[in-house]
């Protein structure tokens, strides 16, 4: 990859935009219960902010924000969170992915289901975000090796 200091304008605008993109991604994830959105969309927007920083400031500084070695582990973690939610519900007496049986005290059945949906969406978001970044890094592997 070429040097990252070619255009200070691009760097400055990307640094300004990235936090707002991340904020919007969190809104999309956590507001998925009430409006269009959810784990897949929010995770993709999160990944977009990280990839924007990598494009703008280059590989070295991008690594400070999100390490290359994290992405593959995090993508597995996201799927694992999803599967674990189902397994916990199964161990506590329900069917697989029956969120009613999740151990969250002080909530009615319907509210527990809403919490289960939220946990699942967070898992999906983490998995999708890390997978997008992982694919981007893998495609740039040639540049890193040169």
């Amino acid at each position, binding site marked *: 990859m070429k040097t990252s200091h070619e255009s200070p304008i691009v760097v400055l605008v990307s640094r300004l935009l990235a936090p707002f993109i991340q904020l919007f991604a969190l809104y999309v994830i956590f507001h998925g219960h009430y409006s269009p959105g*959810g784990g897949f969309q929010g995770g993709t927007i999160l990944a977009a902010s990280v990839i924007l920083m990598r494009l703008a400031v280059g590989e070295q500084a991008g690594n400070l924000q999100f390490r290359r070695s994290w992405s593959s582990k995090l993508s597995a973690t996201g799927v694992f969170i999803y599967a674990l939610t189902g397994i916990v519900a199964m161990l506590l007496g329900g069917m697989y992915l029956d969120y009613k049986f999740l151990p969250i005290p002080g909530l009615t059945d319907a509210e527990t289901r809403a919490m289960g949906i939220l946990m699942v969406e967070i*898992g*999906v978001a983490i998995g999708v975000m890390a997978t997008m970044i992982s694919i981007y890094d893998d495609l740039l592997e040639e540049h*890193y090796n040169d």
Partner: protein
Amino acid sequence: MKLLPLIMVCLVGALMIYASFGLPYRADVNAPFNRDTSAVGSIGAANHYIRNAMKDANTPNVVTVILADYRGYDTLGETTVIFTAGLVCYLLLRRKEYENKS
């Protein structure tokens, strides 16, 4: 050692074929997904979802409830597909650590 993966694939495939025998016939009127009818009398599971989504999951967005709760298996599969795509890219393209070792 190619034999072990082959045996694993055959076992999982046999398990899935075995599980498919437990599914109800598609046109069966008494199947759970054909039990509910809409206001005009047409049969389908969608009517049940639309009517009970708020009651079951306390979530106003019906799409989210169907995606993550009623069809949770489906979404788990979708997430796994994306994870698998990333994993294949990792296996095919990333070779920095590999080259360092050899």
